[in-house]
């Protein structure tokens, strides 16, 4: 019998703590498959951020350093400058990257650091219990926007992939979703392109993944998955915003 599907070698054979219907597991798999396909696992240093993503080292069989909240791009900068021969990526949520870590992502991107940033946008702070994030959609109810996000007082969702694409230091910026088989396949292609930028020494690469957070959205897994396609993809357009080397 031919085996057609198996756990990527970069992932450990363990259960995750992620909630049912959470997209982190799928995104982890995409990252792990891409590491395997480029044979990077034995030369990679990952940077874990604060939030549900902190357990990176529990699920990936990689060397990993933990970063203080929001600072992963600065930590990755230090790692990559000291070990330019290693493959270095950060894995960050939207509270981490787009709120407290805004300065670090902008400036690592602007310096054109040869790292890859994997950004998981689920429009909420997952681990702390579903508070309003910089990516929370207008009108979205969260535990700190109980009347729905009012843009006149609380501003607008930050479109990070587009924002970064305006910086000259950024080589590749894209947004993907993993809410359907087709989108998963597209997401994998974007991940591969982003990794190629670093492998080929072509500069800073960034992929934003839209992700479901059923628990904090107060939805079932299927409903949450549908919300990604219905509401999130409308505000956060999928696609490639910068691809300087046309990979």
């Amino acid at each position: 019998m031919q085996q057609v599907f198996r756990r990527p070698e970069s992932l450990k054979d363990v259960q995750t703590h992620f909630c049912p219907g959470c997209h982190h597991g799928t995104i982890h798999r995409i990252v792990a498959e891409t590491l395997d396909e480029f044979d990077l696992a034995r030369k990679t240093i990952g940077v874990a951020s604060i939030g549900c993503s902190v357990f990176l080292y529990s699920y990936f069989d990689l060397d990993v350093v933990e970063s203080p909240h929001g600072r992963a791009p600065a930590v990755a900068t230090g790692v990559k400058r000291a070990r330019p021969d290693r493959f270095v990526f950060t894995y960050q949520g939207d509270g981490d990257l787009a709120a407290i870590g805004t300065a670090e992502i902008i400036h690592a991107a602007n310096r054109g650091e040869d790292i890859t940033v994997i950004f998981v946008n689920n429009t909420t702070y997952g681990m702390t219990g579903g508070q309003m994030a910089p990516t929370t959609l207008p009108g979205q109810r969260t535990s700190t926007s109980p009347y729905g996000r009012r843009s006149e007082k609380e501003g607008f969702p930050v479109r990070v992939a587009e924002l970064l694409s305006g910086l000259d230091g950024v080589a590749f910026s894209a947004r993907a979703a993993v809410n359907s088989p087709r989108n998963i396949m597209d997401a994998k292609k974007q991940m591969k392109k982003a990794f190629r930028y670093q492998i080929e020494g072509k500069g800073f690469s960034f992929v934003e993944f839209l992700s479901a957070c059923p628990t904090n959205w107060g939805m079932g897994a299927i409903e949450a998955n549908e919300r990604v396609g219905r509401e999130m993809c409308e505000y956060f357009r999928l696609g490639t915003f910068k691809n300087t080397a046309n990979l």
Partner: protein
Amino acid sequence: MAKRLLVRGNEAICMGAIEAGCRYYFGYPITPQNDIPEFMSREMPGLNGEFIQAESEIASINMVLGAAATGARAMTSSSSPGISLKMETISYMAGMEIPCLIVNISRSGPGLGGIDASQGDYFQAVKGGGHGGYHIIVLAPSSIQEMYDLTMLAFDLAEIYRMPAMILGDAVVGQMKEPLIPHPRPHRELPAKDWALRGTEEGGQRVVKSLFLGDGELEAHNWKLFAKYRDLAAKEARWEDYETADATLIATGFGSAARIAKTAVAMAREEGMKVGLLRPITLFPFPAKAFASATEHCKTVLDIELNTGQMVEDVRLSVARDAEVHFYGRPSGTGSLPTPEELLEQIRRYYRN
């Protein structure tokens, strides 16, 4: 004859760091330490090193965290308000057991304060300025030669004990020029870096982290860190002992204040007073035993600091029970640096034959 160079204190730190093998510097401009990033920006490219002027003090210390997590010798420098910004990550590095060097050429405070020499950061440096209950190694140079020597020592101690180390100076020792005799890095046995991240190529995952959620895990980690602090106190306390053997009054202080105090002590000796100076070189570990043994025979201690009384708490905890500890402080601002004559007056005030 060894080569003598006329060098500014901040530059002596850079020379010491480079001699110690540091090739990664990350910083942000703030007075009065700008000579350090300027020097490193000139020197790092030619040494195959990396210099980044980061977007903030926070980013700089996190770049240090990343580079040092790979086992490289990395450093940052700043001054008081900037050091406050670094504190969260210093706590992380203490928890993650990452060696590195942080230089604080401190200024007067609180808040924006001023740029004058000050010692208002003793508590922050020595008592664990960030959250969670930890210590870092703190060295306090009082000469340009010590800026060089202690920088090399700081890197070695940081690696031996796997924790951040700090040089705590100020504008006096940072900006002043004095002769320096450079010398090769002294040989010290250093442990293998079997924790450093390198990609898993040599087999087995390595994780550098400070999150411990398992039952009892974090408590055990805290006791492990505590054991290092106890070891440091037993093995690494350093101090300068100047004329204390027959003294009936011992002056003390650290860094720039101790420099001025030493001049005052020499003046007192010329007047025939039996006065000495006990100067902590390591602030953490604090040389408590040196104070205990010196105050077996000498019962009067005069602590001089450029603040309203910080190290004096550690002095009081360390001296013999029947010793008197007096304090003279000048929390610095413009025009507040004490003169040797002013300190001599204080020595006369408490001196008894």
